C-alpha cells in the first residue's frame, strides 16, 4: 500500500507544484463560470453586469496563457506533460491557448456590443461559452487519446446548446438538433476508432503511439496484415471525428445549417475557435504517428498525407463553389469557413508529406520545412481569427441595424456605415487573400509549403494549382458582399443605419491586425515558426 501512498503523494505534489500552475488559464475560466453562477444565485448580477465578470475572467486567462507562452519561448519554463501525462504543457499548446483566450476576449466583447444574450440569459450563455472554450483548451494540450475525446466532447456539448440558444426560433432549434445529431454520430465513430487504436497499440498516451506503431508496421509483414489494417481503419475513424469538427468535406454538412441557424456571434466563435482547437489536436495526433515513422510507414504516411491533401483540395473547391449561390451572409461565410479549413488542411497535408517523405529528399532540411508548414497553419489560424471574426462580427453588428442577414439587405449600407463596411472590405479581401492583408500572407506561406512538398510528390503541385484557382473563384462570391455594400444603392425606404463609435472602434480593432499582419507579418511568423520548431524537434 505504501507504493500506492507514494504514488498518491507524488501525484498530489505534482498537481500542486506544476500541474495546477500549468492549468491556470483553464482554472481561471472555471472560476469565472462558478462566479457567474454564484452571482446569479446571489442576485448580484443586478449590480454587476455579467459581462464584467466574464471579461475580467477571460482577460486574466489570456494574460496567464500569454505569460506561459512567453515563458516557454524564453526558456524560463520548459515543456513537460502534466496531470500524469494527460495533458502536455508546451509552446504549441500555449500558443493555441493564447490564441483561443484572445479570441474569447474578442467574442465576449462582441457579444457585449451586440447584446446577443439578453440580460436574463447572459450567465447561461457565458457559462456555455467559457465551458466550450475550456474544452478547446484541453484539445489544444491533449496528450492522451482519452483527453482527446474528452476535449472534443467538452467543446461540442456546450456548442450544441449555443447553436440553439436563440430560443423560440424554429431555425435555431433545427440547427441545434442537426448539429447535435451529427456531432454525436461523428463522436461515436471517432470513439470507436479511438478504442480500436488504443487497443491495438496498447497505449493511450500519444507520445508512445509512434514507437508502438513502428513496432507494428516494422514487424515484417508491412501493412498488409490485419493489425495494420485495423490501425489504418482506426486512424481513419479518428480523423472522421476531427474532420467533423473542422467541417471538412464530406463531414461538413452540419456547418452551413448550424451557422445559419445560430446567431452570427456563435457562428463566428465556432468557425474560428473550434477549428483552431481541432487543428491543434490534429497536428498532435498526426505528428504522433508520422514523427517517428520508419521507411515502411513513410510510404504509408506519404499516401495518407496526399489523401488528406486531396480531401483538402476537394474541401476548398466544394466550399468555394457552394458559396456561390448563397443569399444569406452567414451561410455564405459558413461555406467560406469550409473552404478555409481546406486551405489549412493543405498545410497539414504538406507537413505530413514532408515529415514522412522529406528525409529521402537530398538537401532538404525536412524538419525545418515541416516547421514551416506548421508555421503556415498557425499563422493562418491567427489571421483567420481576426478576419473571420471580423466578417461575422460586422455581419452581427449590421444585423442589429438591418434586422436581416440577407446579402441584399446590406445593399448600400457602406454610405451609412462607412467604417464598418471598410472593415468588412478589409476582412473579405483578406479572406480572398489579397495583399497587403494578412490572409494573403497566410495563403502565401501555405502555398509555399505546398510548393516545397511538391518536390516529394507531384500531387502537391496539383493542390497548389487547385488552391490558386480557388483563390480566384472565391473572389466571385466574396465580392457579392462588397458589391451589395458599396455598389448597390440602398433600397427605397430602408431604415437608416446608425453605428455608434464604440462599435466602429471595435470593428477597427479587429481589422487593423488583419492589415498589420499582412504588412508586417514577421513578428507573428517568427513566433509561429519558433512554436512549430519546438514542437517538431
Amino acid at each position, binding site marked *: 500500500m505504501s507504493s500506492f501512498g507514494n504514488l498518491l503523494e507524488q501525484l498530489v505534489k505534482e498537481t500542486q507544484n506544476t500541474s495546477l500552475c500549468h492549468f491556470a488559464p483553464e482554472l481561471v475560466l472555471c472560476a469565472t463560470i462558478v462566479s457567474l453562477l454564484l452571482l446569479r444565485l446571489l442576485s448580484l448580477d443586478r449590480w454587476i453586469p455579467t459581462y464584467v465578470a466574464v471579461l475580467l475572467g477571460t482577460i486574466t486567462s489570456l494574460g496567464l496563457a500569454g505569460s506561459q507562452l512567453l515563458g516557454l519561448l524564453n526558456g524560463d519554463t520548459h515543456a513537460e506533460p502534466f496531470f500524469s501525462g494527460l495533458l502536455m504543457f508546451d509552446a504549441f499548446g500555449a500558443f493555441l491557448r493564447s490564441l483561443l483566450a484572445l479570441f474569447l476576449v474578442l467574442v465576449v466583447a462582441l457579444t457585449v456590443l451586440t447584446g446577443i444574450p439578453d440580460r436574463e440569459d447572459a450567465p447561461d450563455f457565458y457559462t456555455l461559452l467559457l465551458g466550450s472554450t475550456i474544452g478547446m483548451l484541453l484539445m489544444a494540450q491533449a496528450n492522451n487519446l482519452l483527453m482527446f475525446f474528452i476535449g472534443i466532447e467538452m467543446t461540442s456539448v456546450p456548442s450544441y446548446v449555443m447553436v440553439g440558444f436563440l430560443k423560440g426560433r424554429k431555425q435555431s432549434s433545427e440547427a441545434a438538433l442537426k448539429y447535435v445529431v451529427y456531432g454525436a454520430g461523428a463522436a461515436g*465513430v471517432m470513439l470507436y476508432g479511438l478504442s480500436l487504436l488504443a487497443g491495438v497499440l496498447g497505449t493511450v498516451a500519444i507520445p508512445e503511439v509512434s514507437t508502438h506503431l513502428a513496432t507494428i508496421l516494422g514487424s515484417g509483414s508491412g501493412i498488409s496484415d490485419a493489425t495494420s489494417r485495423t490501425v489504418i481503419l482506426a486512424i*481513419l475513424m479518428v480523423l472522421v471525428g476531427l474532420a467533423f469538427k473542422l467541417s471538412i468535406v464530406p463531414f461538413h*454538412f452540419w456547418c452551413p445549417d448550424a451557422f445559419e441557424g445560430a446567431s452570427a456571434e456563435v457562428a463566428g466563435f465556432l468557425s474560428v475557435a473550434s477549428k483552431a482547437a481541432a487543428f491543434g489536436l490534429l497536428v498532435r495526433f498526426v505528428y504522433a504517428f508520422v514523427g517517428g515513422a520508419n521507411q515502411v510507414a513513410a510510404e*504509408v504516411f506519404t499516401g*495518407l498525407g496526399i489523401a488528406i491533401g486531396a480531401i483538402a483540395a476537394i474541401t476548398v473547391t466544394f466550399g468555394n463553389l457552394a458559396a*456561390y449561390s448563397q443569399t444569406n451572409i452567414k451561410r455564405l461565410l459558413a461555406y467560406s469557413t469550409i473552404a478555409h479549413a481546406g486551405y489549412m488542411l493543405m498545410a497539414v497535408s504538406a507537413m505530413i508529406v514532408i515529415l514522412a517523405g522529406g528525409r529521402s529528399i537530398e538537401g532538404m532540411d525536412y524538419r525545418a520545412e515541416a516547421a514551416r508548414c506548421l508555421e503556415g497553419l498557425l499563422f493562418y489560424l491567427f489571421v483567420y481569427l481576426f478576419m473571420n471574426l471580423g466578417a461575422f462580427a460586422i455581419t452581427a453588428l449590421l444585423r442589429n441595424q438591418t434586422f436581416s442577414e440577407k446579402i441584399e439587405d446590406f445593399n448600400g449600407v457602406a454610405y451609412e456605415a462607412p467604417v464598418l463596411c471598410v472593415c468588412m472590405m478589409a476582412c473579405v479581401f483578406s479572406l480572398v487573400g489579397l495583399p497587403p492583408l494578412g490572409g494573403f500572407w497566410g495563403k502565401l506561406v501555405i502555398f509555399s509549403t505546398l510548393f516545397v512538398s511538391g518536390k516529394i510528390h507531384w500531387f502537391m503541385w496539383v493542390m497548389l494549382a487547385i488552391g490558386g484557382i480557388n483563390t480566384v473563384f472565391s473572389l466571385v462570391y466574396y465580392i457579392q458582399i462588397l458589391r451589395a455594400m458599396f455598389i448597390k444603392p440602398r433600397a427605397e425606404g430602408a431604415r437608416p443605419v446608425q453605428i455608434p463609435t464604440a462599435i466602429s472602434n471595435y470593428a477597427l480593432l479587429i481589422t487593423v491586425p488583419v492589415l498589420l499582419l499582412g504588412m508586417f507579418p514577421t513578428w507573428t511568423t517568427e513566433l509561429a515558426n519558433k512554436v512549430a520548431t519546438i514542437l517538431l524537434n
Partner: protein
Amino acid sequence: MDSLGPELATYLSIAWLLPLVGFVIEVMNGFGQWNRLSRKAALLAIACIGTGFLFSSYAFCRWGTETNWAVFAEHESHDGHASVLDNPKEVGHDHHAENKSAVPLAYSGKFYTLAKFGNLELSLDYYIDSLTLLMFCMVTFIATCIHVFAVGYMSDELTIEYVDHHAHDSHGHHVHRLGRFYRFFSFLSLFCFAMLGLVIAGNIFQVFVFWELVGICSFLLIGFYTERKSANVAANKAFIVNRVGDFGFIIGLMILWTYCGTFNFTEYKSGETMKPGLFEMVRTAEGELTYTDDTHETVALHTSNEHGHWVAPQGESTKRRTIPYMLLVVAGLGVFGGCIGKSAQFPLQTWLPDAMEGPTPVSALVHSATMVAAGVYLAARFFPVFTSEVLLAIAYTGCITLFVAATIAVVATDIKKVLAYSTISQLGYMMLAIGLGGWAAGLFHLITHAFFKSLMFLASGAVIYGCHHEQEMPKMGGLFKKMPITALTMLVGVIAIAGLAIPGTPIAFSGYHSKDAIVATALAYTQHNPVHFLLFMTPLVTAGITAFYMFRLWFYTFTGTPRDEHVYEHAHEVPKVMFVPLLVLSVLAAGCAIGGEHGQLFKMISLSEPVGLAEGVPASGVAQVTLPSHDDIHAVHSTAGVVALLAASLGTLTAFLLYCKPVVKPENIKNQFPGLHNFLVEKWYFDDLYEALFIRPSHAVARWATGFDRLILDGILHGAAKSTVIVSAIDRKFDEGFVDGIVNLVGNTTRRFGYSLRVFQTGQIRQYVMFIAVSVVALFAVLFALLPKA
C-alpha cells in the same frame, strides 16, 4: 565649298519650316482672336510660302554660283555634267575623290537623331542635289501661285454664315456654318511643310514620315467641306488607299532596314566613321550590282574598304553583308507600292478622282502638281535600289495606268474629274519613263506637268468659281466670251499637255518636250527589247487620246453654244487675284521646258541622274531587259517626236470634229458602244471590285472578330451549360446577358456546379448522418485501394 551643303540645307530648311510656323500661328489664332472675316491667315500663309520660294531660289542661286552655272553652259555631250564636278565634292566625300566623276553632285547631312538602337540609327537628314533644289523651287513657286489664287477662290468662306449648297441636314435644308477661311490656309501651310520635308528628306524613312504627313494633309484638304458626306468618304478613301500602298512601302523599308541596317540614301557619318548609304551599298561606283555567286541569287552589299571605297569584301567571308536578289526585288516593289498609292497608279488609282471633292486650289496643288508627283519623285530618288525587274514592273504599271486613266477621262463630264484622270494618266507617263530608264525624261515631265496641270486646275477652278460652283461640263459651253482670260490660259495648258508643237521650229510648249522625251525613251527601249513593244505603243496611242480628251474639255467648256442658260447667265470672269496666278503659270507652262533635251531644265535634272544610266544598262536578272543609253534615245528622238506629234494632232483633230464643229454627234458614238461607254463611265469597275474584294470582307472579318467572344464561346458555353444541367438535374434559366467570354463560361459553369451542390445539402439530418457512414466506408475503400501493397 565644304560649307555649301550645310548652307543650302539652312536655306532650304527655312523654306521648309516657314510654312510650319505659318500653320501653327494660323491654327492657334484661328481658334482664337482672328475673326471669320479676316484675310490675315491667307496673307501669313502667302508670306510664308513666298518667303520659302525666295529662300529656295536663293539656295538655287548659291548652288549655281558655286558651280559656276556650269549646268547652263553649252555642252552638247550628254555627259556634260561631269564638268560640273570638277569642283570639290560635298561634305565628307574628299577621301575618295577619285570616285567623284561618277557620283552625282549631292550634299547630305543630318538634322538630328530620332532614335539610336546600337548601330542602327533613325534620324532626320537632308539630301540636296539639283533635283531637290528644282523641286523646292517648283513646289514653293506653284504653291505661292495657288495660295494667291485661293485668296480669291476661297473668299466666300470669309463669312460668319456660309451656306453649303452641297450638304444637307436631315430636313433637307442646306447646311449653314461658319466660314473657314483660316482653316483652309492653315492646312495648305501644313501641306507645304510636309511636301517640302518630303523633298529634302535624306533617308527613305524620313520620306515615309513626310509621305504620311502629306497624306494626312491631303485627307484634311479633301475633307475640307466636312459637312459633305461625299467629301468625307473621299478623304477617307484617299488616306486608306494610300495606306495600302504604304503597306508595301513599309515592307520595303523592313527589308532594307534588316539587310542594310540604314535608311540613308547616301553615305553618312556615324560617330567618326563614314558608313555607306543605301545607294553605295547596292550599287558600285559604276552603278552596278555585285553578285556573290554566279547564279546571281545574292547581291553583295558594299562596305568601306581601307581606301575608303565602297566595295564588296572579297572571299567567302561570312561577315560580308548580302541580300538575296529576290528580296532586293521585293524591297523595290514594296517601296514602289508606296509610289503607286501616292501617285494614284494602277491598281490604286481610284482615290484620286474622288479627291476632287476638295476645293479646287487643293486639287491644283496637292492632287496634281506636288503630292501625287511625290510617288514619281520617290521612284526617281530611289532609282539606284531598283533592280531591272522592279523597273519593268514600274514601266508596266505606268503603261497600264496611263492608258486606263486616259480612257476614263474620255467619257468624264465633270471638269475636275477629267483633269484628275488626266493627272493619273500623266503620272503614268512619268512612271513609265522611270521604268524605262528615262529617268530624266520622267522628272522632266514631272516638272512640266506640275506647271501646266496646276494651271489647268486653277483655270478650271476659275471656271467653277465663275459658274458658281458648277462643275459639270454638259452645263457649260461657250464660256469663252464670258471668261476669255481663263479660256486662253486654259488653252495654253491644254496645248501643253496635248504635246502640240510646230515641227521644225522651237515653238513648242513644255508638254511637247517632256512627252517627246518619254516617247523617245520608250521607242529606244522597245528597239532593245522588242518583246515589250506595248510600252511604246500604248503611250503613243494614249498621247492621241490625251490630246483628244483635253481638247474635248476645252471645246466643251469654252466653245459652242451655252447648254445651260442659267449657268451661262451668271458666269463671269474671275477677279485679278485669281487670274494673275493663271497668267504667271501659263507663261511657265508654255516656256519652262524651252530647249527640250538641250534646255536648261532638262540638263539641270540630268545632273542628278543615277550613275550608269547614261551608258545604258545591259540585260540582267529575271527580266532580261536592256535599258537604252542616252545615245540610243538621242538617235530616235526625232522619230519619236514626229509620231508623238502625229498622234496628238490626230487626237486634237478628232476632238475638234466632235465637239467644236460637230461632224458626228458624240451621243451617237456613245449609243453605238453602250457597253464600252458604261465600262468607262464606271471607271472600269475598279471601285465595285474593291468594294467586293476588300471592303466588304474586311467588315465581315471585323464583325467576326468582335463577335468571336459572343458567338464562338457562346456555343461552347451553351454546350457546357446544357451538360451541366443534365448532370445536376437542375433546369434553371440563367442570365444569358452575361455570356461574354471565357470568364463567364467558367464562372457560370462553376456557379451552376455550385447550385448543383445544393442538392447534397438537403437539410435532412438522416441523410447527413448517412453521409458519415457512407463517407467512412468510401474513404476506407479508397485508401486501401491506393495504399502501397507491401
